[in-house]
């Protein structure tokens, strides 16, 4: 296998506030379990699959970094060469990159968000990046339809589901170049396009159904350049990427001659693409068109454009980011459900995974798309549907668990009913607790008989 000369940076985050109470000091975001495996493992194994084995994992906060580092060295000691770097909290994605950028040496850098759960091969993005000689290549995937899947009879169909808009993306007609991207709050505003870019391509495809998956390939020199020069940039998604897209026809980065000098012919051929799309006489029927002295400007102009490319994942590919509680539930559901190939487990004939050491009481049913990890015990007459149950849980009798995630060492007493909820580790649910759409933070004790709906329960 040839060396790809790509360095990989995994931005694994820290204690993300929008995921509380799921994350805590003891459990940084990167280690949140998805089908009983830390979410970071999905990215790491994906990269391993593309033979990208030299990784830098950047974690926010020293403590979190130690936790993540400890887990990685245990799990991937002989498989991957991983360095874990800790950065202060709140520096943003660009800030995190800035603090490690001096260690980067390869031609191109692949930057992956640690919360990505996907089966799109990163090698494909890297190849696209190389083929176009792009400054940045972004992975785009179809926006997931979020929201709880209909739990059978509850009749969730009445809400017409509209896919959540993540980005507004402008592409060229060949869908290779990224011409516009609106993120975050801009998505709900009017679309503001640069006229020059539209003119250069003539036709722009504006999509609201694509999502930036936070997997980028950057040309290293350009990235370092931007990080050095634009010290106000805090985020890749909101600062660096928009900056590169906006300036792609009036490139500052390349003009400074800082772009690594590739073999000249190759580069200019590639860079001509956008240029020749913009030629005046291209499709004009008349052959004796006014001949324009285009040659005059092309020389200077060539150096002033860089390319922002996209790799659009096939719709059949799974791609999701664990960046909200909703996403956490969705991904857990999908990984043991429709995207079960991601989990790496082999499913039983009943389309579920029950660890041999798990114990089930009599008349207890575990439905399809469920997971029951080692050492967990279920009492009698329990019913588990589309849920993940972690290790060493003690579950009493007459417990109903639907569409939920139960982490490790959870004690659930008799007669509880849990629906659409997330129960963190070491939680105790006393008898006849009824939870619907709740999150219970680690170590919390829910007193017997209490009912909660759409609440977030955590220790103060």
């Amino acid at each position, binding site marked *: 296998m040839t060396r790809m000369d790509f360095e990989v940076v995994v931005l*694994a*985050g820290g204690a993300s*506030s*929008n995921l509380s109470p799921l994350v805590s000091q003891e459990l*940084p975001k*990167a280690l949140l379990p998805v089908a009983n495996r830390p979410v970071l493992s999905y990215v790491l194994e994906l990269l391993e699959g593309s033979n990208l084995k030299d990784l830098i994992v950047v974690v*926010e906060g020293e403590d979190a970094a130690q936790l993540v580092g400890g887990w990685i060295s245990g799990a991937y000691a002989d498989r991957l060469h991983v360095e874990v770097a800790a950065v202060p909290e709140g*520096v*943003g*994605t660009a*800030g*995190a990159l800035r603090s490690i950028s001096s260690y980067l040496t390869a031609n191109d850098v692949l930057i992956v*968000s*640690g*919360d990505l759960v996907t089966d799109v091969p990163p090698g494909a993005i890297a190849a696209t990046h190389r083929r176009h000689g792009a400054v940045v290549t972004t992975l785009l995937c179809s926006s997931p339809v979020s929201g709880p899947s209909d739990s059978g009879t509850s009749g969730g169909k009445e809400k017409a589901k509209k896919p959540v808009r*993540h980005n507004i993306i402008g592409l060229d007609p060949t869908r290779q170049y990224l011409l516009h991207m609106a993120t*975050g*709050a*801009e998505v709900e*505003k*009017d*679309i*503001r*396009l*640069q*006229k*020059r870019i539209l*003119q250069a391509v*003539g036709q*722009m*495809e*504006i999509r*609201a*159904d694509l999502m930036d998956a936070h997997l980028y390939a950057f040309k290293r020199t350009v990235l370092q350049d931007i990080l050095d020069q634009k010290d106000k940039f805090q*985020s890749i*998604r*909101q*600062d660096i990427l*928009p900056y590169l897209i*906006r*300036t792609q026809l*009036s490139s500052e980065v390349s003009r400074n001659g800082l772009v690594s000098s590739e073999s000249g012919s190759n580069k200019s051929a590639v860079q001509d693409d956008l240029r020749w799309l913009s030629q*005046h*006489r*291209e499709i*004009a*029927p*008349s*052959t*004796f068109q*006014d001949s*324009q*002295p285009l040659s005059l*400007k092309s020389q*200077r*102009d060539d150096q*002033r454009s860089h390319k922002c490319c996209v790799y659009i994942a096939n719709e059949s590919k799974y791609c999701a*980011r664990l*960046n*909200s509680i909703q996403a956490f539930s969705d991904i857990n559901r999908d990984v043991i459900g429709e995207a079960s190939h991601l989990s790496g487990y082999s499913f039983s004939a009943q389309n579920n995974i029950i660890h041999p050491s798990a114990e089930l009481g009599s008349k207890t049913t575990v439905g399809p798309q469920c997971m029951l990890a080692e050492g967990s015990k279920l009492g009698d007459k329990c019913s588990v549907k589309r849920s993940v149950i972690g290790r060493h849980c003690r579950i009493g009798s007459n417990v109903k668990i639907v569409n939920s995630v139960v982490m490790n060492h959870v004690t659930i007493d008799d007669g509880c009913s849990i629906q659409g909820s997330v129960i963190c580790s070491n939680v105790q649910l006393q008898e006849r607790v009824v939870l619907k759409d709740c999150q219970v933070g680690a170590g919390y004790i829910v007193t017997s008989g209490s009912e909660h709906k759409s609440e977030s329960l955590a220790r103060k």
Partner: protein
Amino acid sequence: MAQKKGQRGATSVAADDSEVVARIPLQAVLLADSFNLKFRPITLERPKVLLPLVNVPMIEYTLAWLDSVGVEEVFVFCCSHSQQVKDYLKESEWMKPSSRFSITTVESHDAISAGDALRVIYEKSVIRGDFVLISGDTISNMNLTQALQEHKERRKKDPLAVMTMIIKHSKPSNLTHQTRLGTDELLMAIDPQTKELMFYEDKVNPSIISIDKELLANNTWVYLHNNKQDCYIDICSPEVLSLFMDNFDYQHLRRHFVKGLLVDDMKDHLIDSLTSSDVRYKLHKICAFYIELGLLAVLIQSHLALPVFMYMIMGYKIFTHEIHSSYAARIDNFRSYGTISKDILQRWAYPLVPNFQYFGISSKVKLDRQGVYSAPDVVQSRSARIGATTLIGSGTTIGNHTGISNSVVGRGCTIGNNVCIDGCYIWDNVIIEDGCRLNHAIVCDGVHLSAGVVLEPGVILSFKVEVGRLITIPAYSKVSLRPQPSVQDSDEELEYADASSAVIESPCTFYTHDLFNCFSAIVACISITSMVSNRNAESSPDYSAHEVGISGVGYIWSTNEGEHEEEWRHSIAPIPEAKLIELSHAYLEEPDVAYLDVNDFLVSGEVKPDSESIGFDDGDGGDYGDSADFDKEVEATFHRALTGVNQETVILEINSLRLSCNKSHADCAGALFFSMMELGLEAPRSSNNWLLVIKLDMFGSDNDNHGVDCELYQNIAKEINKWKDLLKHYLKSVDEEASIYVVSFRFYEPYIYQLEMCICYIQFAIEVILKFEEICLETATELAPLFSIILSYLYEKDILSEDAILSWASEKEGADESDKIFVKQSESFITILHMKLIGPQNWLKEASEEEDEDNGDE
């Protein structure tokens, strides 16, 4: 059995019926008027549709195309020079019984736009079904069947799909921002699946294009096109005409009608989202009620009209049909005239080519190598060189050593020796003497160029102009026998005014006389008719000899300053190289502007963090205290006011600031007040800065006022007095804003309107007082002791009303003790106000009650 038969009979009859209903002959509306002045001065004498395009009048091409697509009834709308158009059609093959369709002319003299024309057509009520709307200067060879089919099918599914526009690929130049037809670049948004047109903009100027977010409200996928050209061929449903009727202000087909529909479509979504169906129902009722009462005018005047009309015309849709291999283009300006002529010569518009017997006028030209067409009876010297893509009309003679290339030469022309013609369009019966050089010019019928004349690129010589020996006509000149209309007349009306048919022949008779050298002066604005009557009196226009030569006839039309800059855009001549170089430099320098934008992007706080980021929650990207900036800006504006700018300008400036920063009037008032206070503080004080203890016994102030800086007070009072009008403006104009706000959201509840107006006013005044408090506490503590005095002063000067002060006081009631300093300070003042408001006796009563309560509490 019999029953069955009967049934079958019935069904077949029904089928026949539906066929009869569906069988409406395909109709077309041909606008034989372009409703613009781009072909002046030629169109002063002949309508645009009759101008020869490769020696055939333009309208022939349009009619030939209509014939080829199976149109059965054509309504030709004539306006300017209508008699000429009618006469021409009468003579043409199309009016003969052998013609496959019927032509009806519709005439109107007061129509000044396509909108008016369609309204006239509507009034004739001749259109029964879908029709083709085309202008008489459109050349096409497309097959309409598919587009028609699509249109009909869409109509069946969705009766709101009223129009199908034909578009074609055409990439505008990056440098000139125009297509090869010389038309402005066009921005369209099209739904790739349904081909619905979502957005249409032909004036794309700023470097940032802003598109309404509603565009993506229902779609996830839209194509934005900058590389399409509007062919100006539309398939319309009869509703289009009635829409023009309903919207009497629609003039331009694209600018008003298309955009109007699209924008209303947007509003429709908006109103959808704003109001429930219940409210819409009410709205509908209100409309109906008002219209019944004939109160439409009232509606229009009040702001109610907007939503009402939104309700009335929403939902219509326009679709597009793109043609790929066929040809369709409209002659919009001289550049497109040139381009399309060449396309015809190069057979892109086949079968509409010069050697094809398609037109009524039989043209027996034959095609040689290199795209040279020539009539059989052309008399051509052996030494003459006819270059590529050229057409020489019948009866033309060409002298020795004359070179002609890329040109069209009409019938009966005489071209002398050593003439050089490149890229020119020479119409009929033109005489070009020896040694002339013509470069990218249009030379109309009957022009006489004496020996040695040079026409620089882009020259237009209108009918019968004569140019004297050795004259050089400068580039982009337009020469006509008609004097240039004076500026105030230069709108459309004039063209139609002198279009009256009686005048048409005058130029002909005019020039049978030998007028050349002997004209005495006559005022340029004299009308043609009077010129005719005066011609025997030997007083006729004085053509300036240095323009068209000693023996020349014609006026050089001067172009307006602004126009001249743009002359190269629409000229027949290719864009000069120097211009392109200039433009490309401009293009290359532009990035710096774009780069500035980039900075703006960040500073203006557009980039906001949101919850989507990964663990590295992206930090605060923007929002650098908008309000502080705003205050500063207002202050700066205000300081400018000090230096002599008058108050109205200041108000204007502050208003624009307010709009750009999205602030309310209250913020303005607050900020203004702040700057006034600062001014008062900064004002120079006399050197012996000693304190005066003053007694302001007008409201019986207590000992709080000891140690008050009297001078400071006076300074501030002076400033307030000086600028109170400005401040008042903001406090009073509140009403207006409130009313707009109320009208737009609550217009069906008039009483709330009243209420909110009051509330708004008080709120705004409170804003000022709060600002004042803030100043006293934070920026200028020395003001603090003056608070109550200034408050009373503001009241005295009628800037703050008692309502406002009282509600401020009551608002503060629940506040912390520290917040109440100023309320306490001005307690006595407030009491007085209170007394004033409810009458002293009542107040006494209340006060005693309060006291009682207080006592009771203790």
